[in-house]
């Protein structure tokens, strides 16, 4: 048995795999990482001549915000909110209640304040308790968790599932609502949604102006 050749072979394989990891996948990951933290300006989509294609592309860009855990966690498919980047069920177990404000005796305001609150406790993984004056769950008809971007797009346009809003009101909500804006200011220990609320509002506005087309999937 020639151990020397065997060990050299393993070392060569490791080197090969290591080099591969360092080169192409890493550069792709770097692009993806940058891509999840920023939003392309709405104006940059003008280069897409076909209006419908441009509209879809605008919504897909806005989808980086809409499908982010900061947004989806409070648009759950059940009566229990989600938490964290991995979107696990909220701990402690809390439930929707009247107006999405929690159950009697265990309302959102039992723990959540008007502002994000840094904690001085012992948990390394919890840096702050998120907060906003309007902290509450989105109504169940606005559930986004588990849905495709195409399904969410249709839902946002449907007055029966968007709180009876016109498209102009949708633009206003996305661009200026304070609780929506929390996504860009989620407190210590939580990744904000990409870009800025102003950029997001411009994407939604441009999407509506271009016909509010939805992705096929």
């Amino acid at each position, binding site marked *: 048995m020639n151990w020397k050749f065997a060990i050299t072979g393993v070392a060569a394989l490791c080197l090969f795999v290591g080099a591969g990891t360092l080169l192409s996948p890493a550069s792709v990951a770097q692009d993806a990482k940058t891509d999840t933290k920023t939003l392309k300006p709405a104006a940059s989509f003008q280069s897409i001549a076909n209006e419908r294609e441009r509209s879809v592309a605008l919504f897909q860009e806005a989808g980086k915000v809409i499908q982010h855990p900061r947004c989806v966690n409070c648009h759950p498919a059940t009566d229990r909110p989600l938490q964290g980047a991995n979107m696990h069920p909220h701990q402690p177990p809390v439930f929707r209640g009247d107006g999405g404000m929690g159950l*009697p005796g265990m309302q959102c305001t039992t723990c959540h304040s008007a502002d994000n609150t840094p904690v001085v*406790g012992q948990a390394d993984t919890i840096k702050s308790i998120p907060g906003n004056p309007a902290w509450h769950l989105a109504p169940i008809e606005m559930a986004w968790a588990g849905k495709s971007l195409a399904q969410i797009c249709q839902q946002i346009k449907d007055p029966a599932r968007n709180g009876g809003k016109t498209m102009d009101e949708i633009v206003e909500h996305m661009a200026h609502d304070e609780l929506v804006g929390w996504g860009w200011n989620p407190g210590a220990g939580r990744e904000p949604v990409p870009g800025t609320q102003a950029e997001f509002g411009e994407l939604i506005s441009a999407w509506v102006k271009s016909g509010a087309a939805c992705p096929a999937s």
Partner: protein
Amino acid sequence: MVTFTLNGQERTFDGDPDTPLLWVIRDFEKLTGTKYGCGVAQCGACTVHLDGMPRRSCVTPIATIEGSEVVTIEGVSGTEADAVKTAWTGLDVPQCGYCQSGQIMSAVALLQMIPKPTDADIDGAMAGNICRCATYHRIRAAIHNAASSMEG
């Protein structure tokens, strides 16, 4: 300077505005019935009543309670509190007891909101109060007993 009411008496606090209410209650007011459990609103041991609603004092910066009314286990009173005290001692609910002031504050608040709670109401209101001795079955029974005693 923050001014608030603690168990019916006006109090002031002139320290760091980020100081959690729990620290003020325990370290400055020396009311140690309210317990520190996790410090991150995961266990319920620090529950007090803030303007009549249950609130985790460990995640409540003192600056946010200007003008508010705080009630702790030392000061909680009234029909619901009396009923809970009788029911708790009647069933000998606590084991180690560490979580119990938080449990009681949540139970009293529940009964103030829902005088005759169902099991589901109790689960909903008490889900954030953890008991390592697992006295949950006695807690639930005691809340039902307290509710029944208030009916007469």
